[in-house]
């Protein structure tokens, strides 16, 4: 017991010593705030897309479908089939019928945000066990991918 008190006192003394030492330190003025400057940005490409931000029109814009298909082949095809079959991620057949356009665009462009707060996205992660990667697709490019998805779902 006595021993405990002594060691507690020793610790206290050490704390005081340390404190008194560091008080003498002058703080350097910081010319550039590296921490602020270099803060890692979350992997988003623009802010969250709301339902009202997306307008769909018929007939489909065929130029957008073509560009969207090229993006699909370069960046999405490895994991998503155009059928309903799941590969790494879910197949794309009927995705435009089951999900709102804004949800699809957010999933492509702001996947970190979606996995953090969207229950449907979280369910998919539990199912697939691979976080959908950020494929560096901006909103405009994603919109074209959506047009291709609509075409894949039989819209004209």
């Amino acid at each position, binding site marked *: 017991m006595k021993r405990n008190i002594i060691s507690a006192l020793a610790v206290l003394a050490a704390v005081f010593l340390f404190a008194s*030492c*560091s008080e*003498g*330190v002058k703080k*350097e003025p910081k010319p*550039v705030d*590296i*921490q602020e*400057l*270099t803060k890692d940005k979350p*992997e988003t490409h623009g802010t969250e897309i709301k339902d009202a931000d997306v307008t769909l029109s018929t007939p489909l814009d065929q130029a957008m479908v073509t560009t969207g298909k090229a993006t699909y*082949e*370069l*960046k999405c*095809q*490895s*994991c998503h089939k155009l*059928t*309903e*079959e799941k*590969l*790494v991620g879910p197949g794309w057949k009927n995705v435009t019928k089951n999900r709102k356009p804004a949800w699809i665009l957010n999933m492509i462009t702001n996947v970190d945000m979606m996995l953090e707060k969207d229950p449907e996205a979280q369910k998919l992660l539990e199912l697939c*066990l*691979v*976080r959908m*990667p*950020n*494929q*560096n*697709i901006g909103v405009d490019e994603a919109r074209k991918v959506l047009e291709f998805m609509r075409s894949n779902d039989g819209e004209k």
Partner: protein
Amino acid sequence: MKHSFFKSLFAVTTLSLTLAGFQSCKPKGGQSAAAGDAAAKTYVAPGKYDEFYNIVSGGFSGQMSVYGLPSGRLFRVIPVFSVDPEKGWGYSEETKPMLNTSHGFVPWDDLHHIALSQTKGEHDGRWAFGNANNTPRIARIDMKTFRTAEILEIPNSAGNHSSPFITENSEYVVAGTRFSVPMGDNLDVPINTYKQNFKGTVSFISVDKDNGGMKVAFQIETPGVNYDLARAGKGKSHGWFFFSCYNSERANTLLEVNASQKDKDFILCVNWKKAEEYVKAGKGTKKAVKYAHNVWNEETQSATSTIENEVVVLNAKDNPDIVYYMPCPKSPHGCDTDPTGEYIVGSGKLAAVIPVFSFTKIQQAIANKTFDGDYEGIPVLKYDAVLHGEVQKPGLGPLHTEFDANGNAYTSFFVSSEIVKWNVKDLKVLDRVPTYYSIGHLCVPGGPTVKPHGKYVIAYNKITKDRYLPTGPELTQSAQLYDITGEKMKLLLDFPTIGEPHYAEAIPASLVMPNSKKIYKLEENKHPQAALGEGKARVERKGNEVHVYMTAIRSHFNPDNIEGVKLGDVVYFHVTNLEQDWDVPHGFAIKGADNAELLIMPGETSTLKWKPERAGVYPMYCTDFCSALHQEMQGYIRISPAGSSVPLSFSTGTNMPAAEPAAAPAQK
């Protein structure tokens, strides 16, 4: 008994005398010299960033390393002159040409010095240069990608030590010969004809101001001395370059003794602006030589190596007023210009003073021809006429000097193992602090620029001895960080380094980090063998070459089952990483390959060459943990005997249609 008593008494007395002597020439503090608030000053909390990048030469590792300051944490080892199987450097088909030389593929070198690019005498954060000391070369590292972007061999050179030091707008990096060598058509001469046949050169390598591309602009041929270190003039002395040299005796054996005969050797002062004019006026001679020029192309993500055949040489003797020798005591090593460009600090390795020369006086001496005769036809400036003054009793064995923004110099002393701070103008010693042990180079952030950032001096030591847990005969190399914000220098931190650290530079993170590249965009990938999209993945046979155009993404390869390859075939795996996310490289390795792995950055394509030697099925897998299913990122390639009729085929996940219960095994 009596005898042994006296013996021990003697021993104790000797020891205490030695200790007393030791302490008297060293500042107090010794082993526990770290300042009381050292931990707080070097602690960078988890998730926080360091204030400076410290770009450190890797010495005989041949590489360049990147540390954070003040934490001393190691971030990256950039492969430069030596192969690096971890990164596939020198093993992938794309990187092999980077290590090509006029002697063929050279897998190793010795990188001594760093030069960071400058604009108007200040760091601009674009490139880092490093020298190869053995097979003379200069490398340029792109600070956006922290990769070696270019390697240029230096002709008519041996031991490229006096390199790559840089001018204030990165007009030139330089290369001075540490070994003089025979030049010209007949290189097969007796070694003892050194004085007749051996020549020194200092080369000026121009740096393209837009893309950094290097070119041997011209060489100056000089007597056969040994060039050691160099610094560009700056400010008022911009347009001049200063090279220290030893062996003015021109000895070719036992230099330890024979090159230390004379009281003074030289610092070579080069008026490179004038040399430039002379070259333009056609005064140079074109000499036939052979040297490799290797360039990394970021679009095709591969290197090309070109052998160049010609170099322009200006003979110092025939072109007066471009070079002058300036006497400097006792085998000068370091040769450093202060931030104003007025003072040039010479450091004789064996000297007991530090001479400081004045650029203004050098110009006056040249104008008034205040010469002390000539050396092999080149004017020698009169020592007293160009001297600003000598720092008296600074320490033993001065090597290198860096500067802060307040007119102070910091000189490393190898023999007395200390850093000495002194005032450049009045030459008074202000402070000294011991290093553990035997410091070589030292670095003040921005120290070689016109605007030093100051704050710290870092010692790069030659001996570590008892500073770290021992690891057998070979111990870690080390650096030490000192606070220089106060009047007294304070030891803050020891940190281990790779290879042997020679020169290093430190640059504020704010100048580098915002430009750091995160991914290679797939849209910009112009690699001829890239598979841009999984639909492009395929296998093609061209004679006995089998080309696998493979994609990698979390977490599978395509194709991952390959058959129809036969013994006698050479297989090229061109692997494209389809990721577009920061920090998601994929690796690629195959069992039994007499090669390294590939480490492929997002959006990049790399090629592994493999010549299978036995029939069988060989597994391949991703080596860099990429996702929860990384362990599943694997595949097989089947190798059949020569002449086998197995057709070439490839696939990944040839899934049965989703609704086909027949695919399930029948139950019994």
